């Protein structure tokens, strides 16, 4: 059984990119979420950030066009996370 299964908290490395980095005024940080033994998801990290209010609440609100990647792979907010994972938030991509 993985350690994270019974963990009380999960700590992830969070990265903000492009427009989000500017509007949130943050590049990267460690975010710890309380999970009390259940599986943590990206949604838990979003909830912790939204609870800060201000730009955090408006930028990460449900319905906003924010993409998420866990360990460099694009995924959904329902994706499971484990301690040490890298979680990135960014706007829809515009390369090419």
């Amino acid at each position, binding site marked *: 059984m993985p350690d994270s299964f019974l963990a009380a908290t999960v700590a992830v490395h969070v990265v903000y990119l492009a427009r989000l980095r500017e509007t949130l005024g943050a590049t990267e940080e460690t975010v710890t979420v309380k999970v009390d033994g259940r599986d943590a998801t990206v949604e838990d990290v979003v909830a912790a950030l939204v609870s800060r209010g201000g730009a955090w609440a408006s930028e990460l609100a449900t319905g906003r*066009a924010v993409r998420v990647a866990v360990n460099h792979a694009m995924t959904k907010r329902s994706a499971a996370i484990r301690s040490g994972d890298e979680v990135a938030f*960014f706007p829809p991509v515009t390369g090419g």
Partner: protein
Amino acid sequence: MAVRVQTEDFDVGHELAALRGNDGRIGAIASFVGTMRDVNDGVQVTAMTLEHYPGMTEKSLDAIVADARARFDVLDVLIIHRVGKLRPTDQIVLVAVTGAHRGEAFDACRFVMDFLKTQAPFWKKETTPAGERWVEARESDDEAAARW
């Protein structure tokens, strides 16, 4: 197969020759070059900064190339994408595909560009007379990728 993310410009002729090498199986090379326009949404653009997410960028481009090779009967795929400060008329991206025949090479080249536009973590910030602004993603790009 190669994926490169770089600030430097690239020489298309040189890159195509290198990709082609002496491979006698190749009968077609399809390529796409994206370049920077001096106007966007009716506003003059004097410069652009391309940001990316180091680590994820290469991984995501590798995955797109692997996907293209699995879907299409092609021999090799090359992607070069520039980052950093660019000026109008500058080259931004090169996608080149080699294959035995043109049909699969054309399709694979278009597939790679359509997915790069929606999956690869690059963002453009434009400099205009009114200041800087982030380029918004286009819905038509999602539709282009969804076709496949």
